């Protein structure tokens, strides 16, 4: 990097940027961590989870959709943003039924690791325990809506990568849910196949390929690192 390359500042560190970069993409390339749940380099950004909210020149923006601007001052780790992020994560936990001790995604779950990194020890809010029946109708993929955080990664992957548009988001407020494009509304009657990217992109344990849940044992998983496992 020559001194003339455009950069912006993230929590005091200079981050090089390329044309078309968002704040999150540039930070990720530089190996700097802006927490997120609904972002993936494989699909377009949706800015639905707001966990990546940063202050860009003092203004709160979603880092995953906001273009990086040379010379901009971006703050991610401020006490108020840390608290906001913690509350967002706590709300995601109480709005679903997230039972980590019984979830085969534990250790590979982005929601879990972001909450651990945010220092979440309690839920703060009333637990809502929504009623969401499990859909095990697909022979190769389990749909466990209790764990769905409505990040829309499967919606975008099915549309943009698989070209199938199996998923959509429907409903309003607390009744918002993942819809499946099939005559019965069940996954088993949809066009989804286990080879689809949408069957694997879920950051939590809501869409899971069957029969491989514990192929990698707990303790050897993606986020079983020092900062989360001591």
């Amino acid at each position, binding site marked *: 990097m020559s001194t003339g390359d455009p950069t912006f500042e993230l929590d005091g560190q200079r981050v090089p940027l390329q044309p078309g970069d968002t704040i999150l993409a540039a930070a990720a390339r530089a190996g700097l961590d802006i927490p997120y749940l609904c972002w993936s380099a494989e699909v377009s950004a949706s800015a639905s989870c707001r966990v990546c909210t940063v202050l860009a020149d003092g203004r709160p923006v979603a880092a995953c959709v906001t273009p990086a601007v040379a010379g901009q001052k971006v703050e991610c780790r401020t006490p108020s943003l840390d608290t906001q992020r913690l509350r967002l994560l706590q709300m995601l936990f109480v709005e679903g039924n997230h039972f*980590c001790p019984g979830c085969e995604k534990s250790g590979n779950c982005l929601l879990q690791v972001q909450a*651990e*990194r945010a*220092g979440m*020890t309690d839920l703060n809010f009333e*637990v809502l325990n929504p009623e969401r029946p499990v859909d095990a109708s697909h022979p190769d993929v389990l749909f466990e809506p209790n764990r769905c955080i409505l990040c829309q990664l499967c919606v975008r992957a099915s549309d943009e990568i698989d070209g199938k548009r199996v998923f959509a988001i429907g409903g309003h407020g607390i009744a918002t849910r993942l819809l499946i494009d099939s005559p019965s509304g069940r996954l088993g009657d949809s066009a989804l196949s286990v080879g689809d990217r949408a069957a694997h992109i879920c950051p939590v344990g809501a869409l899971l390929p069957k029969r491989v849940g514990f192929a990698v044992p*707990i303790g050897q998983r993606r986020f079983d690192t*020092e900062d*989360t*496992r001591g």
Partner: protein
Amino acid sequence: MNASAPAPRKLRVATVSLGGCFGCHMSLLDIDERLFELIEKVEFDRSPLTDIKTVGECDVGLIEGGLCNAENVEVLRAFRAHCTVLVAVGACAITGGLPALRNHLDVGGILQSVYGEVPDDPELPLPLNRVLPIHEVVHIDHALPGCPPPADAFWQLLQDLIAGRTPVPAPGLIRYD
């Protein structure tokens, strides 16, 4: 140095398992030989370790398990009334945990299918319609997540409280499974 100075007062600690499996208590025991060091600085009030049945005035109360029945609520309120610092210990106390998986089912229906009838005995506490995490009923000062929380998390929490510090779990000691 004044050799006649009295030893500092020991921290009085009560522990209980409400709707829990005692796994969190087992994890506390997993601090192993550090128990000897701990017992120099704390004394136990009501706890499975002492078999004292009612909670007295305490500095710290450790609550394992969520609220499954009316007796759990009564015990929790007694702990809140008598403990200066109340700590929610483990997934069940913090979220309801495994027992809360029954929250989508009718209590009468569950009792009927398990026992063949709805038990009716004055000694049996009434089940709650929903299993509740304890923060929905009383104020909680700190929480130790995990199923169970690691032994080191108990150790750090107690060390912080003994030293008069606000407990902040170290990275790696916050986990939910």
